[in-house]
């Protein structure tokens, strides 16, 4: 159900509504005028009891400099104001990022344009933060629904695949009706690389490229520059250093790309599939049938390969796997990815804080106590690791594919989880089992990796990988055209500059990044920075009709074409296209101003109007069943 139509389709039903509304407006005006002539009117403005006729004032904010969010706000402004010019007034205000966050924290932002990218490929990683009342965005929007919470928990713990898919479909359908969020865009990929490269596969769960996929000719092919090097892959990427190369702490894509090439997890995504997992350090994917999943989905048993070497030449054992998980939970960085493990491995996980170095003890004190961790994960024997979950959670297999599930060499890390006072050795050094070994990281310049000769599969075809930060987009494009770079990050606005001979383009495949508009159902009126621009009550968006009016007033095609240069599709809900749980039969919100007007008409203003026009219109509406 992609909303790709250039013009909104108007159904016969919606046309009928238009006629009805026009009639009502005329009737209301005539009625009101008649009452005024007969002495029933006064100088005060009439109130019709609904937001369409009475209008409203609202201020939308975007973080200054974010042209896409600014455009989204402007689209809403233009379309909503068109519904009742002069009465509906939307003010669009750009604020600094810090103020944007402040407004959001204070609950003073009525409508929030935000984005979300998944941590692991499971619908629970979408519906939980958006729809569960403990979720980040649900709580931010003041939305809570006990029944829905139960449905979310039920779907998250369902072991049967078909039944689980059906439950997510039901959640998506219900949420379409509820319209808590307006899903504006699901980004699609745009990838440009030299035509001498082979092996590229796009997977929305990859952080950057997996260089093991690639090969390139040893000798210079046609169009290659004089300095062509068949042993080196040069990736020119945007500016930005990894926050950390430690898989227990790193929680962003710049570091994630390095980790996904140097470290390995027990399982990983199969090629371009975000659904199918394949064993990497394990011998097979745990299932109920092979005994890997037991006790109604609360026990996971991974059998490990015995031929895996770390980059420090130590052989991987189950103790390394157990230690890697223990380390992540011991560090338990509140801004890191440890929660993905802790949420299902540790009882009352959110009661525990971060681990830290203790000067008095001269040692690192774990955040989650070691005895609690020991009950959650242990090495059954030299090549078996067992996990004890607090509840059934099929997404656990996928959560373990995130970098936080990376296996590191215990011998290499040494004591205190690699910490010496506040210095974390793993922040800028790595020792994994992956096809590439970490060589160097020169900040603001480049990261170098080298193929690991003793890799447990065929060694990587390309010997060296250089990931170079080139801040300027034009420079990156020149490097690609020149052939100096094998692949570059292309700015969205410059996509057409690389559509030339010698460069292969892959585009249009859905990423799992979704943009959305959150509607605040508990607006903090007192904290409005410009109170004169808002006259709605705090529960303005608690009215479903208002939310639906906004959903139908947004021109999705315009936003995607003009704002995102066509590199997106319109999502039909929280679960993005391509992910398990996505269902194409869930409808999308259409851009339809007539429907928007109708929904606003149905949205009642707080005080029921006493004006003649209002009574007149409301009486008619009541008679026809609204």
């Amino acid at each position, binding site marked *: 159900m992609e909303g790709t139509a250039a013009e909104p389709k108007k159904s016969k039903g919606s046309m009928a509504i238009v006629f009805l509304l026009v009639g009502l407006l005329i009737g209301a005006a005539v009625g009101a005028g008649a009452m005024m002539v007969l002495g029933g009117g006064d100088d005060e403005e009439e109130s019709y009891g609904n937001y369409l006729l009475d209008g409203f004032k609202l201020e939308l904010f975007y973080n200054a400099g974010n042209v896409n969010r600014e455009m989204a706000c402007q689209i809403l402004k233009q379309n909503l104001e068109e519904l009742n010019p002069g009465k509906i007034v939307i003010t669009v205000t750009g604020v*600094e990022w*810090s103020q944007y966050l402040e407004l959001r924290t204070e609950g003073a932002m009525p409508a929030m344009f935000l984005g979300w990218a998944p941590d692991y490929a499971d619908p629970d990683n979408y519906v939980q933060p958006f729809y569960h009342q403990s979720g*980040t965005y649900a709580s931010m929007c003041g939305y809570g629904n006990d029944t829905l919470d139960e449905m979310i928990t039920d779907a998250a713990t369902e072991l049967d695949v078909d039944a689980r898919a059906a439950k997510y479909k039901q959640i998506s359908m219900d949420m379409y009706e509820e319209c808590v969020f307006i899903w504006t865009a699901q980004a699609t990929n745009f990838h440009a690389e030299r035509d001498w490269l082979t092996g590229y596969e796009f997977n929305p769960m990859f952080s950057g490229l997996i260089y093991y996929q690639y090969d390139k000719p040893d000798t210079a092919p046609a169009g290659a520059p004089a300095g062509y090097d068949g042993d*080196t892959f040069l990736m020119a990427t945007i*500016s930005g250093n990894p926050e950390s190369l430690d898989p227990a702490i790193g929680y962003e894509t710049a570091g994630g790309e390095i980790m996904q090439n140097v470290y390995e997890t027990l399982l990983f995504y199969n090629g371009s599939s975000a659904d199918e997992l394949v064993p990497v350090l394990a011998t097979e994917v745990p299932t109920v049938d092979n005994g890997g999943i037991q006790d109604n989905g609360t026990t996971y048993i991974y059998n490990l390969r015995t031929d895996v070497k770390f980059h420090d030449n130590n052989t991987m054992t189950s103790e390394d796997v157990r230690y890697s998980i223990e380390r992540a939970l011991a560090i338990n960085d509140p801004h890191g990815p440890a929660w993905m493990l802790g949420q299902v491995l540790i009882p009352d996980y959110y009661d525990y804080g971060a681990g830290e170095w203790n000067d008095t003890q001269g040692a690192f004190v774990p955040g989650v106590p070691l005895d609690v961790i020991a009950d959650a994960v242990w090495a059954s024997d030299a090549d078996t690791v067992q996990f004890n979950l607090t509840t059934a959670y099929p997404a656990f297999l996928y959560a373990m594919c995130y970098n936080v599930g990376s296996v590191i060499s215990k011998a290499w890390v040494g004591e205190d989880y690699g910490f010496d006072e506040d210095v974390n050795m793993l922040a800028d050094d790595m020792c994994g089992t992956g096809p590439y070994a970490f060589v160097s990281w*020169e900040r603001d310049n480049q990261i*170098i990796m080298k193929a690991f000769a003793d890799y447990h599969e065929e060694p990587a075809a390309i010997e060296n990988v250089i990931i170079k930060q080139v*801040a300027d987009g034009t*420079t990156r494009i020149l490097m690609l055209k*020149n052939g100096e770079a094998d692949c570059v990050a292309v700015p969205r606005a410059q996509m057409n500059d690389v559509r030339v001979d010698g460069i292969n383009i892959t585009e249009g495949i859905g990423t799992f990044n979704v943009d959305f508009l959150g509607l605040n159902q508990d607006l903090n009126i007192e904290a409005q920075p410009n109170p004169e621009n808002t006259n709605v009550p705090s529960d303005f968006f608690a009215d479903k009709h208002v939310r639906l009016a906004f959903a139908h007033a947004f021109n999705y095609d315009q936003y995607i074409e003009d704002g995102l240069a066509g590199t997106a599709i319109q999502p039909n809900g929280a679960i993005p296209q391509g992910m398990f749980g996505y269902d194409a039969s869930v409808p999308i919100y259409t851009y339809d101003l007539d429907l928007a007007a109708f929904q606003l008409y149905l949205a009642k203003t707080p005080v029921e109007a006493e004006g003649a026009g209002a009574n007149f219109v409301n009486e008619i509406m009541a008679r026809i069943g609204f």
Partner: protein
Amino acid sequence: MRLANYIIKRLFLLIPVLLGVSIIVFTLTRISGNPAAGYINEKMTPSQIAQVYEKYHFDEPVYTQFIYWLDGIIHLDWGWSKTAALPVTDALAYYFPATLELTLVSIIMAIFIGIYLGIGSAVRRNKLFDHSTRVISLIGVSLPVFWLALILQFVFYYYYGLFPSGGRASNIYYLTQSIPDITGLILIDSLLVGNFALFKDALWHIVLPAVTLSFGTIAIVTRIMRNSMLEVLSLDYIKTARAKGLNERSIIWKHARKNAMIPTTTVIGLSFGGLLGGAVLTESIFSWPGLGKWSANSIRLFDYNSVLGFCLMIAIIYVLVNLVVDVMYAYLDPRVRLE
């Protein structure tokens, strides 16, 4: 001894200057937005945001925050640079050599070319050389740095392939980890270890960014040098020298140049400080991993610790460069007394 006392006195004067700079910059970072913004992302829950406020004292009054920060500065704990994933002091030491190398090459180019052009214009006043130099100077101060950088890159890298796109050295030296780290300046380190191929390679890499960076400074130095040279050439001692029958070359390059250098030295000194802190665009376009690129990223990512550290360091450099300029005055003009 008088010189040593003077230098010590000037160094003590650093303290109020740095205190003033730090108060201004710290206040600006606090009033220009919420300093917590750099540590908060859209995925954080309110309790995580509260932890950030508590950890960095953002929930306390600004003066309390300043005292915490100043205490850290005194104890060489300048905070954590989120952008560099390093302590700020380490980050400054990390990025400084690259910027210093680029600045030194640029300023050397500016000095030699600017002085030559300035003297030449003064000597050939209102001739073709003077007019040409004036046009070049005008272009130099008018051209936006980013535009010049992109044009140089397009022509000399992409079109003719004469120079690399950016970076400090070719990949092969990084892959073989054969770049020595003695001073952090590759041009010097390569000579120190006798790796002339690396020296040549580093020189090849620095040409385009150095030309870009020095172009504006060349223009300014040329104009200042021309004016002061014209003034000096009209003085009596030059007339005396001519009357004595000294050859014109000796008069210009030996007698006039030295005195004309005094105002030029001030400009060069200030430009040096400016180049160290202002190579943001040049470093970004030529992928030069220096202070400019780091500070620009820090500003973009609301990394106020880094911004404060950068400003403080630039202030220190400015004061030190001014000190060096004042000392050089005494050398260039013995009439100047250092008191």
